[in-house]
């Protein structure tokens, strides 16, 4: 028993839990703002106004077309260098997740809203609801249901993406594991536990999503 408690598998855990908490905070807060961005730009991609459509498309394509690693370096080193300010690592990470996930969520939102039958908005408009009332009371509630599975999927992707922020030494899960084996040389044990902790979040999420998907199917 004592041998187990003394093993690196156990001794690494307090570090990893601290990292996991930061991973979850960055992912959670990042996705919160990412959803707001996604809702705005996703609707923008459905706009008939060419300017709004254009700006939204540039945002979506620019962020989906570049690696998130380049994005975090850009936010943490690039922009401060150009504009002469400092940004802390956690904020930079949250901004990177928000912007990156926002672009993917914009496509999720666009697809979900677009998938709602045109007859729904015609029925809403024909009783006299305004365009925005129709969106709010008729289209959005139906579309949001269809967004849940892909949003959950995005959560898993963004959660894993936060590991890339170890390059700027954010104390997230992977980075904390690296720190541990940097001093103890127990790389196998530390990385095994890192991966198990990722799986402890991602696998239940995936299982839950499959259940939700099945329920929405019927």
């Amino acid at each position, binding site marked *: 028993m004592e041998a187990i408690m003394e093993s690196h598998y156990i001794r690494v855990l307090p570090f990893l839990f601290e990292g996991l908490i930061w991973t979850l905070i960055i992912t959670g807060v990042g996705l919160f703002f990412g959803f707001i961005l996604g809702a705005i730009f996703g609707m923008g991609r459905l706009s008939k106004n060419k300017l709004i459509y254009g700006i939204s498309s540039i945002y979506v394509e620019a962020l989906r077309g570049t690696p998130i690693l380049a994005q975090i370096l850009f936010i943490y080193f690039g922009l401060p260098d150009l504009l002469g300010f400092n940004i802390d690592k956690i904020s930079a990470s949250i901004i990177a997740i928000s912007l990156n996930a926002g672009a993917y969520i914009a496509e999720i939102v666009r697809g979900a809203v677009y998938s709602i*039958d045109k*007859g*729904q908005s*015609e*029925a*809403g*408009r*024909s*009783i*006299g*609801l*305004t365009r925005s*009332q129709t969106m709010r*009371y*008729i289209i959005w*509630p*139906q579309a949001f*249901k269809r967004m849940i599975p892909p949003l959950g999927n995005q959560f898993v992707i963004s959660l894993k993406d936060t590991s890339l922020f170890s390059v700027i030494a954010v104390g997230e899960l992977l980075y904390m594991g690296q720190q541990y084996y940097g001093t103890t040389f127990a790389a196998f044990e530390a990385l095994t536990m890192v991966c198990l902790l990722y799986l402890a979040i991602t696998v239940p999420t995936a299982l839950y999503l499959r259940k939700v998907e099945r329920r929405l199917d019927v």
Partner: protein
Amino acid sequence: MSEMITVNNLHKSFGKNEVLKGIDMKVKEQEVVCVIGPSGSGKSTLLRCLNLLEEVTSGDVFIEGDNLTGKNVNINEVRTRVGMVFQHFNLFPHMTVMENITIGPMKIKKVSKEQARKEAIPILRKVGLEEKADVYPESLSGGQKQRVAIARSLAMNPKIMLFDEPTSALDPELVGDVLEVMKDLGKEGMTMVVVTHEMGFAREMGDRVIFMDEGVIMEEDIPENLFGNPQHERTREFLSKVL
């Protein structure tokens, strides 16, 4: 009696495809006008121009004297006066029957929820679905869905009701209930424009029948004349196929 709908030289194109080629039409208060014609002749498009679900290419549409193509029209307000019933019902699936009916009065007329529900009950009774108030549309038959859709329009107290083939998505045995509700409405004096393949309904309820073909009104008359003694070859041809 005053004019509820006036259409002057209405043209509608989808891209290069001209679908309505100069429609003139008047509907008086309490009149029931049935529109018949072959598929693709522009019946739905005409109906949808009457509440601007389709943008008009040129010409004028007046509803109770308000010019829909004019600059100052508040189209949302006009639409509360013009109910529309669709072939595929288009009920809101995430709302109960009661919520489908009360959303309009609550959000547009700012009626309280209690008041809206109270006012919905006689409307539900009228379409024979009082006991279905709290179920979701998915558990209703097609005929019941269409009657809810009619109730949803009626809840706004419209002056005019537009019907676009309200029974053609229904199993034959369910058509009757919907037609009954529509007949009751007509008898109560509702102004109605009904695009339909139900010639029996047109004959019985129509004050006038309009035959459309290729984007124009070919012929219009009281049902006895249009069905009994059609003037145009195209009308005869069409009627021989459907009667």
